[in-house]
């Protein structure tokens, strides 16, 4: 069997197209210009403080909410300072310390994406030259909306991307330096800097994804990308198996190239976990997606993979120790994660293969992607046969015997981040009932952090228990996920920009973030399904995109099989990996440019204000846990896109909350009339953590409401809000008077109920602003 790399394609009946016109464009000698045909706005390449006034507008409306993890500051050699009701020895307060922690987290996340982007760009320039064109395909003229807006230029070649990345790196230095003891001291200024870090993260992600799209010819947003295989059952463990984990496609792509060049598709399995899994399937459909981050330890413990190739970000740092348990080999491939392994980059490939096969070394650091491709595949081929007996967990009959050793101390539950009932499952297993252990496996209810094992006073291999007990449920599971499509095309924006801005499409909801969900991955799929049925545009990336794919609906289909991958009402678009999140904010920016003709160059504030007030988009990060997710959220927030998070995200220590009881907070400028008018909490919060899926879903549809909605659009949005509120809370929402501006906004099906409610509250109508804005009139 042969697989094709995903490439651009023309329809089969292309030649039957009527009135076909073909343009070869302008024939010119020399390099196309980077300058855009529009005036330069006020903030090209903004410094750390250039957008401070915008940030403060956001922070006035959505003041930071702090929930400290720790009462103390442990930063400097004064020693620990208790900040509970006191200042630290350097003068810092608890609020500022929390804000500083968030800034640090955002800087770390941004550095991870920027580091990935830098590796990628460096590799591509080395392989293809700096003049390799940034060609995003026939339907994408705005190739890099974030770069255009923030830098004020359009990248023509991959060499041009370097300017954006250098700017990110410079700004990161400034931001990180502000975290030093005895520098920034004001919580709001730390917040402004965190938002700036988020914007740098957005830029870095856009650079990284554009680079890999053009270099590896990944899909350019067609919307009909192929369905690729997902799930543990897709891997044939009788073959040599190479598992890629992390977030850098370069080594994975070289593995697939080696397989193609040597005609090994039938002989070797290549699969992935986390973002690399998504990205290698964007490159070559032969690769298989095991699943999100939470599959990591379970899959390694299962022993199926012969060679584990790790690149960067979100990889278990004990991956080598885990691999050694069942004789698998680890290859580290970036400077971010060397794992103490010997550097074999410059050594003869055959010698390295022999050393790994013979067990002279447990793994190797190989910083040359092409070399990784050969070594990984050849080692897997050579050791797979001898590992055959290791490609499974210990016999299931051993679990009850071992489980009887449990002393029922309960500490496995107490240290579990999710309070999973591990002890109950173990005690049931001791009596021969393995169902409770198996239940922990399904939908990644347990995300295999391994804290329980670390705590167990009898050293019971609890993750292996769960893995083995659940193995029979999942080992044959095969799902479909749509390959990551990358950006939203300009033609799609032309079609849906108006309906989104005017409210005729109820909203765009982006499921992003990590897989530490409060109740397993099923909740994220259920939320997506509910919104798809209601004709929201649903987009997804990374672990969330995979979790959505692991759900089969009542018709026996995955949501990717049931819904198209287009950016349109009831479309479910897998945008790609974490770096592809840039295309979601990019789509919002494109709406401002294509639909409203807002110039982008150096014009951040006007574009963000437009998005905040008009584009009904909301992010849902039901399981965000990483610093990257913190940076991504900060980036979205600065553009004016709110996000609903899962309860674990309260541990980010900071949220941005509005107050519906404070009417003055929602005053808004009508740029058309020049007046300040009464507004509404739309969106109510900028960053909010919900306790349950039901609360999250209601909050999400509510946060798609925008001041610019037309009466028809507002009716539609309120209809979904009321529907879901009634479904989950049993009555109509208590705050409708805030969102019903006049009778034209009331959904027809709820007219009587809503009018009765409004009348009881002495509601009076008001007119909607024509051009709502947080900015002053120019």
């Amino acid at each position, binding site marked *: 069997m042969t697989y094709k790399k995903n490439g651009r394609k023309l329809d089969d009946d292309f030649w039957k197209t009527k009135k076909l016109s073909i343009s070869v464009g302008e024939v010119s000698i020399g390099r196309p210009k980077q300058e855009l045909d529009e005036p330069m706005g006020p903030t090209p390449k903004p410094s750390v403080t250039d957008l401070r006034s915008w940030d403060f507008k956001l922070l006035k409306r959505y003041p930071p*909410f*702090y*929930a*400290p*993890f*720790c*009462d*103390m500051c442990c930063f400097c050699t004064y020693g620990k300072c*208790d*900040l*509970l*009701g006191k200042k630290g020895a350097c003068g810092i307060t*608890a*609020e500022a310390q929390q804000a500083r922690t968030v800034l640090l987290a955002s800087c770390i996340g941004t550095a991870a994406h920027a580091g990935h982007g830098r590796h990628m760009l460096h590799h591509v320039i080395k392989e293809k030259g700096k003049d390799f064109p940034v060609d995003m395909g026939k339907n994408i003229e705005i190739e890099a909306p974030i770069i255009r807006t923030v830098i004020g230029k359009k990248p023509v070649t991959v060499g041009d991307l370097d300017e954006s990345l250098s700017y990110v790196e410079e700004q990161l230095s400034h931001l990180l330096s502000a975290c030093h003891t005895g520098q920034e001291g004001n919580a709001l200024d730390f917040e402004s800097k965190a938002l700036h870090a988020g914007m740098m993260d957005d830029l870095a992600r856009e650079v990284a994804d554009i680079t890999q799209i053009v270099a590896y010819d990944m899909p350019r947003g067609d919307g009909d990308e192929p369905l690729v295989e997902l799930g543990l059952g897709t891997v044939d463990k009788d073959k040599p198996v190479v598992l890629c984990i992390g977030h850098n496609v370069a080594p994975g792509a070289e593995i697939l190239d080696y397989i193609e060049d040597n005609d090994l598709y039938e002989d070797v399995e290549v699969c992935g976990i986390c973002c690399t899994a998504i990205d290698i399937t964007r490159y070559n459909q032969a690769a298989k997606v095991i699943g999100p981050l939470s599959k990591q330890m379970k899959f390694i413990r299962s022993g199926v993979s012969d060679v584990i190739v790790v690149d960067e970000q979100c990889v278990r740092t004990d991956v080598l120790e885990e691999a050694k348990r069942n004789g698998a080999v680890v290859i580290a491939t970036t400077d971010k994660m060397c794992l103490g392994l010997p550097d074999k980059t410059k050594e003869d490939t055959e010698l390295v293969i022999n050393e790994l096969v013979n067990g002279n070394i447990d793994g190797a650091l190989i910083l040359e992607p092409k070399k990784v491709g050969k070594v990984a595949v050849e080692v897997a081929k050579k050791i797979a046969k001898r590992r055959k007996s290791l490609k499974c967990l210990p016999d299931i009959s051993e679990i009850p015997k071992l489980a009887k050793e449990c002393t029922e101390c*309960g500490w496995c539950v*107490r*240290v579990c*981040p999710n*309070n999973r009932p591990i002890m109950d499952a173990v005690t049931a297993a001791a009596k021969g009932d393995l169902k409770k252990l198996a239940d922990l496996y399904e939908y990644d209810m347990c995300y295999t952090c391994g804290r329980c094992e670390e705590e167990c006073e009898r050293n019971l291999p609890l993750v292996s228990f769960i893995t083995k007990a659940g193995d029979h449920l999942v080992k044959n599971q095969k799902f479909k996920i749509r390959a990551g499509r990358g950006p939203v095309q300009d033609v799609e924006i032309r079609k849906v920009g108006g309906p989104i801005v005017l409210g005729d499409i109820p909203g765009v909801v982006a499921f992003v973030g990590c897989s530490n969900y*409060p109740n397993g991955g099923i909740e994220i799929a259920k939320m997506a399904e509910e919104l798809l049925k209601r004709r929201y545009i649903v987009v997804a990336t990374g672990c969330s995109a995979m979790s959505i794919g692991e759900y089969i609906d009542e018709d026996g289909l995955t949501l990717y099989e049931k819904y198209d991958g287009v950016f349109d009402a009831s479309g479910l678009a897998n945008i790609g990996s974490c770096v592809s999140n840039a295309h979601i904010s990019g789509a919002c920016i494109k709406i401002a440019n294509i639909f409203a003709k807002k110039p982008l160059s150096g014009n951040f504030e006007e574009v963000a204000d437009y998005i905040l007030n008009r584009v009904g988009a909301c992010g849902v990060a039901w399981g965000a846990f990483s610093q990257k997710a913190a940076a991504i959220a900060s980036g979205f927030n600065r553009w004016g896109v709110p996000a609903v998070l899962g*309860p*674990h995200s*309260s*541990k980010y*220590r900071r*949220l941005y*909350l509005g*107050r519906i*009881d404070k009417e003055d907070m929602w005053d808004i400028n009508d740029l058309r009339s020049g007046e300040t008018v009464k507004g509404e909490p739309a969106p109510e919060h900028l960053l*909010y*953590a*919900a*306790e*349950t*899926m*039901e*609360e999250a879903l209601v*909050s999400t549809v509510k946060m798609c409401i925008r001041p610019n909605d037309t009466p028809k659009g507002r009716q539609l949005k309120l209809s979904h809000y009321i529907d879901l509120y009634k479904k*989950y*809370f*049993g*009555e109509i929402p*208590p705050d409708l008077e805030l969102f019903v501006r006049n009778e034209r906004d009331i959904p027809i099906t709820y007219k009587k109920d809503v009018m009765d409610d409004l009348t009881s509250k002495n509601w009076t109508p008001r007119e909607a602003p024509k051009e709502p804005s947080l900015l002053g009139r120019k």
Partner: protein
Amino acid sequence: MDGNRTTPWQPTVIAGPKYGMLVTPAIAKMMLKKAKNPLFVIGSLIKDDEGLISQCKEIVETWNLPVAATGNIYKSLTENGIKSKRYGTIEIVNLLKDPEWKGINGEGQHDLVLFIGVTYYLASQGLSSLKHFAPHLKTVTLCKYFHSNADASFPNMSDSEWTNYLEKMSKI
């Protein structure tokens, strides 16, 4: 569990030198008696436990407490005859931080807040927020597990002991 009565249920939530006070129902009731405008926050963890909801109802009625329902428990409370207002945990904590907030019944900021049934790690974060930024109120948790970020908390308990404690709370 006896040896760990004042170790937080999730031991890693220990935040610093200040620790919540372990209380019995008798002390919690004394705090309630002293309070001028208490509030009861009921979280979604007890949504499907009719016995617990019934015990909460008795506490509400005994002390005439206004109730904030978090997560998705609002409907269950209504169906079981407990009048409440719905808030997200984060939302109600945010409002409790503000000394100027008018309270859930418009009678001014609360001075004592009882919590039960909020997801442990989320409650811990909310209590931390109130510990730092709401010096105008006291927090008490009636949960089965010890919360070190509260001002006062029941200890880690077995189910039967907890039931006993909650029964005592509904007797003045």
